[in-house]
């Protein structure tokens, strides 16, 4: 079975070098070791998630990759150079981008800053620069919003403006810190779609800090998971193990395999710990899928009646169903990257 990452390697990076290489990397904040013994490399042209509990050092890892925080041990190479020396090739979208921008800035100007913001001296914006900004905004689908102020845009649109700003200088690596946080499902889906398109059409290496992997699962090649103070890297099929995820998140997590791929779910907040979760075998789930496509309008209700075990845990089941339909809808947006991955499985 050929994974997407392997194929991307061949297709997109003739030089073949990994995008990021961690060698015994470790980082401290004050006297506290956040994580250490990081030994892995992330292939070029891949989409990788950084996962872990709050405070595990996910954002810290991005800051280290940008060379903004020094390592206390080991080395970290990014796009062929030590961390911090290749930042001109990196597009960075921090967490909560623009949530506190208190200015009249329009979307277009914000994107332009990504191109001209670092230049000292007098530099009137050129037509070529405007065209470049326009191109980035077309790519992320916010071109029609370019004259809107950031404060007038929804969280999802702001996120896409931020991605356009990161894109405008033509980076090879895109780093996004919690890009899906505080977005509704539709906006999450659109953001993921933009990321998949970037990866697929431009061969861009993408790194995403994420709490909830479900929305990203269809496009992910692998994940860096921060566990017990050590970062590990694994391909997606390796990381999606219920025991590992449960350990990783510190709460019970189940992996459900469906015809659309794997997804993992957490029990509902009001579910007692000792309840056996309602898990379905792939062939069983394939049955739901059949109903689903045949009769979409009544599918959710029908599924529940058909398959929920005695209606004991409807709330939990509802969650599985909703996760499934989310991922499905994500796929329905249709990009070849997803389909290839599906074929691979």
């Amino acid at each position, binding site marked *: 079975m050929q994974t997407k990452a392997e194929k991307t390697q061949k297709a997109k990076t003739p030089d073949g070098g990994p995008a990021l290489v961690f060698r015994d990397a470790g980082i401290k904040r004050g006297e506290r070791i956040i994580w250490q013994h990081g030994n892995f490399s992330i292939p070029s042209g891949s989409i990788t998630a950084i996962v872990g509990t709050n405070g595990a050092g996910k954002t810290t890892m991005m800051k280290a990759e*940008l060379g*903004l925080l020094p390592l206390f041990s080991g080395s970290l190479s990014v796009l062929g150079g030590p961390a911090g020396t290749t*930042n*001109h090739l*990196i597009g*960075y*979208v*921090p967490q909560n*981008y*623009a949530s*506190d*921008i*208190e*200015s*009249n*800035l*329009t979307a277009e*100007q*914000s994107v332009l*800053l*990504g191109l*001209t*913001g*670092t*230049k*000292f*001296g*007098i*530099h009137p914006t050129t037509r070529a620069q405007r065209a470049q900004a326009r191109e980035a905004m077309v790519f992320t689908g916010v071109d029609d919003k370019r*004259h809107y*102020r950031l404060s007038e845009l929804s969280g999802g649109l702001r996120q896409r403006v931020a991605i356009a*700003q*990161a894109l405008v200088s033509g980076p090879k690596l895109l780093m996004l810190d919690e890009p899906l946080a505080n977005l509704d499902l539709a906006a999450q889906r659109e953001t993921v779609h933009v990321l998949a398109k970037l990866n697929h059409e431009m061969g861009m290496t993408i790194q995403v800090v994420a709490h909830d992997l479900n929305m990203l699962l269809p496009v992910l090649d692998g994940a860096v998971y921060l566990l017990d103070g050590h970062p590990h890297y694994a391909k997606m099929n390796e990381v999606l193990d219920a025991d590992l995820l449960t350990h990783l998140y510190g709460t019970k997590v189940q992996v459900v395999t469906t015809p659309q791929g794997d997804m993992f779910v957490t029990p509902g907040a009001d579910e007692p710990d000792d309840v056996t979760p309602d898990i379905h075998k792939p062939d069983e789930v394939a049955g739901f899928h059949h109903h689903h496509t045949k009769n979409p309008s009544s599918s959710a209700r029908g599924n529940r009646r058909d398959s929920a075990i005695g209606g004991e845990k409807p709330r939990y089941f509802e969650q599985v169903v909703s996760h499934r339909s989310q991922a499905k809808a994500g796929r329905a947006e249709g990009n070849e990257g997803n389909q290839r991955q599906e074929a691979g499985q």
Partner: protein
Amino acid sequence: MSHIQFGFNHEWLETLSVPFMHNAFIAGLCIALAAGVMGYFTIARHSTFAAHALAHIGLPGATGAVLLGLPVSLGLGIFALGGALTIGTLGKKASQREIATGTVLAFATGLGLFFSRMSSSASQQMQAILFGSILTITNDQVLGFAIFDVLLLAVMAVVYRPLLFSSLDEQVAQAKGVPIGVMNVLFMAIMAGVITIAVPAVGTLLIFALVVTPAATANILTSTPLRSMVLSSILCLVSIWGGLVISAMFPTPPSFVIVTISTLFWIVAKGVEALRHR
């Protein structure tokens, strides 16, 4: 004569043509230019309260200078710059720490009062420092203001974009290699300069209305940083010059009229914005 006089001054045109009025008008122009440019950055950096506090940190410097027989502006400038560099070195986040800023503000104001009570001349100057006395601005002061403006524009020509980037989007700017620490110290240092030249016009207490309010109004009405700075300067200029003209017509303190005009612009802009979003 104890009744309140509020009569129209029919000789207001003559009043406007006396030499100290000329100085006031030129000073107003210099102040408007500097305040308009820096007001935008102050808002973008969420540092409006820090800017306000800087004026108060300058107060003990101003009254202390009178005590020592030095020019008010010198003492004010040194204290404001000292405070600015301290806040600037602590980082952009520090300028958003409202409690620390407010505490320092209160202490500095108290210290300013203490110095002013140590000599009768400082005591006399106190009201002018607190509320401004644009009509007493000297030729030397005007020259100083003009030099400051030229320096400000020269520095801005060099750092405009990186300063803007770091003000609006510090994390990305930092990742892109903008020296945000330098930008922060630079911003605060320039701010100290702007305050030093604006205090003579409206005083430490009312300076918010001259540095921040016009910029806030301009932010509502325009949609690019540069246009906002230009409009902010114009609003600031209209406020100051309007204040001078009206206070020549009616017996009112110029500071009061300046602050009133600036506030009215802001209220009107807010109203227009509210209607637009209905």
